[in-house]
């Protein structure tokens, strides 16, 4: 239950745990539940292993892959790192060229920067003005020594949806591995790895009403799509990601995936209605820039109000829980690199706000948010130099 003194519209950051999962967790953790080590061969271990196996089937079903193609991790950040660092290092002897975009999540961009420090050559492809990756620019960037491309499915700041099937086809045609960060799309948009020739795909539970601390990396297993592990010890999960499996978290992830599979279509329709309602309500605010495309993921709306300080806008927006387009606590406020890459100037990026809606979001919350946003922008503009009167 979201506290009554806040209106939570930051579902792209994380989601509350579904009540059905909250109810089930104590049973999994109990002495007669699935607390045991799933790698143990005794009865308690087998009980935990059965739960993990069932969860793997639920998650795999939503991805269109086999349960055995999933590696459990602590979340999408670890999955991204395992795929990018692991694949690049594993294939370093074949070539050291990699391709990604500056608009990727920090878990991806920082992993590539680490590889640059290790001597890899990274091509940072600029997106088109609409935030999408141009297939032609990708085609031109690929070289004989290119080993890996990493492109996110849905952008966490703007909701831009990349054409992953087409990108995957191109990469496969050129013999290059493709990693997809699907943290924002898993359980929300259809993903069909039985058809899409993707090699690695990162997902996490806490963006789909599951708990934090559990995620997965899909590894296709086709020849060449191997990763060097980041951790060592224990040998679990084929040595790719050793450590005792948290059966209760994996079970929760499985249940979250099962719920998402049942409600995905309904969720998308709900989010589309909320987006339309919100856009109608903020229409007419002078100088407003929409940073999310109309055909983007409907749960994410990013807007910039010119001539408004982003940090002050965030405070003025309380009790709304939303995300800003900048890091506000530094001496110099750093605008979002994603928005800057899309062509926004520093002021526009710094004043950007991301509203993200979720399954529990109500129309009254959206109406309140729109009215509150309009009022906050007007108030800050009224006290700014140059304001009329």
């Amino acid at each position, binding site marked *: 239950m979201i506290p009554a003194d806040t209106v939570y519209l930051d579902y792209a950051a994380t989601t509350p745990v579904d009540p059905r999962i909250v109810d089930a967790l104590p049973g999994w953790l109990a002495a007669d539940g699935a607390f045991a080590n799933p790698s143990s061969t005794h009865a308690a271990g087998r009980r935990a292993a059965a739960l993990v196996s069932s969860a793997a089937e639920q998650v795999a079903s939503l991805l269109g892959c086999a349960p055995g193609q999933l590696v459990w991790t602590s979340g999408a950040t670890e999955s991204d790192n395992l795929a990018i660092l692991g694949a690049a290092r594993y294939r370093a002897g074949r070539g050291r060229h990699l391709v990604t975009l500056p608009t990727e999540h920090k878990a991806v961009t920082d992993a590539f920067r680490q590889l640059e420090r290790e001597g890899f050559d990274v091509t940072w492809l600029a997106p088109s003005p609409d935030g999408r990756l141009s297939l032609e620019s990708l085609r031109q960037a690929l070289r004989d020594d290119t080993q890996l491309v990493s492109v996110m499915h849905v952008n966490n700041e703007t909701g831009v949806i990349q054409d992953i099937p087409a990108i995957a086809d191109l990469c496969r045609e050129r013999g290059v591995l493709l990693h997809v960060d699907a943290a924002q799309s898993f359980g929300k948009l259809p993903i069909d790895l039985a058809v899409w020739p993707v090699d690695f795909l990162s997902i996490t539970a806490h963006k789909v009403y599951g708990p934090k601390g559990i995620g997965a990396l899909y590894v296709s297993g086709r020849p060449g799509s191997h990763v060097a592990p980041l951790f060592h010890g224990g040998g679990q999960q084929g040595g790719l990601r050793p450590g005792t499996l948290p059966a209760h978290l994996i079970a929760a992830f499985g249940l979250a995936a099962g719920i998402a599979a049942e409600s995905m279509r309904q969720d998308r329709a709900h989010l589309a209605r909320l987006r339309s309602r919100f856009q109608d309500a903020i229409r007419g605010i002078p100088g407003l820039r929409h940073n999310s495309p109309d055909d983007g993921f409907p749960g994410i709306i990013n807007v910039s109000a010119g*001539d*408004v*300080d982003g*940090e*002050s806008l965030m*405070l*003025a927006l309380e009790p709304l829980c939303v995300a800003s387009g900048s890091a*506000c*606590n*530094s*001496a*110099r*406020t750093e605008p979002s690199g994603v928005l800057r890459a899309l062509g926004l100037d520093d002021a526009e990026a710094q004043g950007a706000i991301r509203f993200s809606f979720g399954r529990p979001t109500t129309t009254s919350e959206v109406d309140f948010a729109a009215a509150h946003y309009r009022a906050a922008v007007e108030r*800050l503009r*009224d*006290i*700014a*130099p*140059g*304001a009329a*009167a």
Partner: protein
Amino acid sequence: MNAVIDPYSAEVRRLFAAPAHAGRLPGAETARVTAQGVDIELFLARDGDRVAALRFRARGCPHVLAAAESLCAAYEGRPVTELRAFRAAELVERLPVPIEKTGRILVLEDAVRSLGA
């Protein structure tokens, strides 16, 4: 650990939420300074050698807006000479303002210096 604590004191929140001295004073002395991502405009109306009214308009972070409001509230009715002696350090300590934002509050001090210059 990067856990975020509230970056704003109760005083900053109070001043930011209800800046009673925000707005312009027609016919008053004005000074406007833009630096460090901050834009501050001050309006001073005198009654002899005293500050009859002091108003501000500003674009900046909550600490800047709170500091401008605090300045105006504190110096109305006091001698202009005291206003001219204003130092940003007093607000940095009292609100308080994070050390990394001190430069922004100095912009307010510059605006005071520019009044009647």
